[in-house]
């Protein structure tokens, strides 16, 4: 059992629930993240990612559930957890009216880092911001702000990194560097929980967790999540895919139709029904386009999961509403 090496479990929460007013925003969420893991936290806007992360690091009080973070109780030991966690907020929340260096100095002082000026200098150089160190943080571009915030949140060498959409608005080169660094840190034992909307980033995680309407609806490696979805994909390539798209959308067995340049990705839960639908559409349009089996993408799976969760949520709310007048 896990009790053999309990220090290996960094985040271990059960039944975490958070309500705002009478709206349940995080609903019975359980998570476990092991040491050195990079776990991607995905889900549509408003699904409760930020709220969950805030509860893990003690910024919000859960209404239900319990758990430990770095072996410390999230309800009682928030102050001790904070010392060992690096949290990068979704919205830039360093001081815009301070310079880059002053912000880093501030963080270094808050965490009482020894040899502060050397650490700040090193951080500035690694960021490539050394020349601009006296520029106000508020005058940085969006992507640079993100990079500054990330650098600031790892400066005290936390054991756990909670990153809330750290690469939103960051260019591909910088994103790659960022992920390379995350992997390097994880090899040294840093644990990372990172929320993102980027599929390529999800694929760089050891594991992903997908949350929708406050509930976790899928978890595992990317391959496992795709596999478990049971979705098949057919790629249609050729002329006139627009007409095919309009037609095939109506057919039974087809769930998603998405053009990618000259290609058309057609996705459905049943491989046989999907093939029939696509073939029928090709015949009806007299198209000479080529249809062949493709790989189901994570994005297709997420869209499916989101639609399912929405349907569940609506039917749950629908019954609630139907009950109230009587």
């Amino acid at each position, binding site marked *: 059992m896990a009790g053999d090496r309990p220090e290996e479990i960094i985040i271990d929460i059960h039944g975490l629930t958070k309500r705002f007013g009478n709206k349940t925003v995080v609903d019975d969420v359980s998570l476990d993240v092991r040491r050195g893991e990079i776990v991607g936290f995905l889900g549509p806007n408003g699904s409760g990612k930020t709220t969950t992360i805030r509860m893990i690091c003690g910024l919000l009080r859960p209404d239900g559930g319990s758990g430990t973070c770095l072996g410390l109780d999230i309800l009682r030991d928030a102050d001790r957890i904070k010392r060992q966690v690096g*949290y990068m907020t979704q919205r830039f929340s360093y001081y815009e009216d301070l310079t880059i260096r002053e912000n880093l100095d501030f963080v270094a002082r808050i965490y009482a880092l020894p040899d502060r000026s050397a650490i700040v200098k090193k951080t500035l150089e690694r960021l490539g911001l050394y020349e601009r160190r006296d520029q106000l943080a508020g005058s940085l571009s969006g992507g640079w702000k993100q990079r500054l915030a990330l650098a600031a949140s790892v400066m005290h060498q936390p054991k756990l990194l909670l990153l809330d959409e750290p690469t939103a608005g960051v260019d591909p080169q910088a994103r790659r560097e960022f992920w390379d660094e995350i992997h390097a840190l994880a090899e040294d034992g840093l644990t990372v929980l990172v929320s993102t909307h980027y599929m390529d980033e999800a694929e760089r995680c050891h594991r992903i967790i997908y949350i929708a309407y406050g509930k976790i609806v899928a978890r595992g490696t990317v391959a496992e999540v795709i596999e478990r979805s049971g979705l098949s994909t057919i790629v249609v390539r050729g002329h006139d895919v627009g007409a095919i798209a309009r037609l095939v959308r109506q057919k039974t067995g087809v769930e998603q139709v998405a053009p990618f340049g000259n290609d058309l990705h057609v996705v459905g839960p049943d491989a046989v029904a999907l093939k029939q639908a696509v073939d029928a559409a090709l015949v009806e349009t007299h198209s000479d386009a080529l249809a062949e089996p493709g790989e189901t993408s994570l994005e297709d799976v997420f869209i499916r999961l989101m639609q399912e969760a929405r349907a569940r949520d609506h039917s749950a709310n629908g019954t609630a509403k139907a009950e109230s007048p009587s």
Partner: protein
Amino acid sequence: MSSGFSLSRILALMVKEFIQMRRDRLTFAMIIGIPIIQLVLFGYAINLDPKRLPTLMVAAESGPATRTIVAAMEASGYFSIAPGLASPAEANEALIDGSASYVITLPPGFERDLVRGTRPQLLVEADATDPAATSNALGALPQILSSALKRELTGPLATQASPPIAVDLVIQRRYNPEGITAYNIVPGLLGTILTMTTILMTALALTREIERGTMENLMAMPATPLEIMIGKIVPYIGFGLVQVAVILVCAQILFHVPMMGSFAVLLGVTFLFIGCNVTLGYTFSTIARNQMQAMQMTFFWFLPSILLSGFMFPFRGMPDWAQVIGSALPITHYIRSVRGIMLKGSGPADLVNEIWPLVAFWLAVGALALFRYRRTLD
């Protein structure tokens, strides 16, 4: 027409403002509360011709003439004479600590000399640090005495009452002999300026963080509420001390206000006072939801601080309830201390009654701030 001036746009804005205001209970309370408070304060508390100021009698013996004088002074309404006689030392102390505004001293043999018609001396010492508080009463004094003594000396001694007045009235305006208003204004100004600026600065401390979104980050860092409070308060204490230096230098240059006491004592009391203010401001910022509310709270505090502290209107001239409120305000004790130090040369021992309320206030608001501080974003 439609782009320049639109009634419907104005209406839309008014409705929006009204809804926002109604949701913001504090603003609503302020809009109603401030005029009411002003009305009450100006209508009742403010007494430009202060009456019933505390007075002590110092005399070797009491006699019919003494009693007549006391009765007449009481009857004038300007003086509230403490029962019994005080020793010269007690009277002097009372003047320094402000518990007496006047001391009347009758020399030994006053009664006898009066009857003999040798015009005995009647010494009136007034605390003139606030000229407004004493000038009217002192002006009325000769008239009060002469009519009282005329009555007393009727009969066989009536001739003695012939003008001029039967006593040699000697008035000493202590601490501010020329009755210069600036001497009173400077300590008051010091208090009000510090109240306004230092409270406002710290009142915005947390609300600004919340509004700018930096609070989340700050909360995620391992700083305790006390650390955050101290970290936010101390810079503003320094800020306040700089202000004090500027005001004092200006006071010296413009008004030549004397400095009878020690700068160290002044610095100490000022430190306490600024500490009270910045901590109060910080407490406001733990209660307010945004910067606007924080500013309103500051303003709300500022009003009684100006009106009831003894700055604008003599403290002893206010009705009792206003004096009670005034006594709870740090600025009241600060103004008294500064007047004492600058004009009377008071030392720490003389200021005990002003220092302990400042300390108590500071501790109380500090505790309230820590209690109110929100540790989470909920």
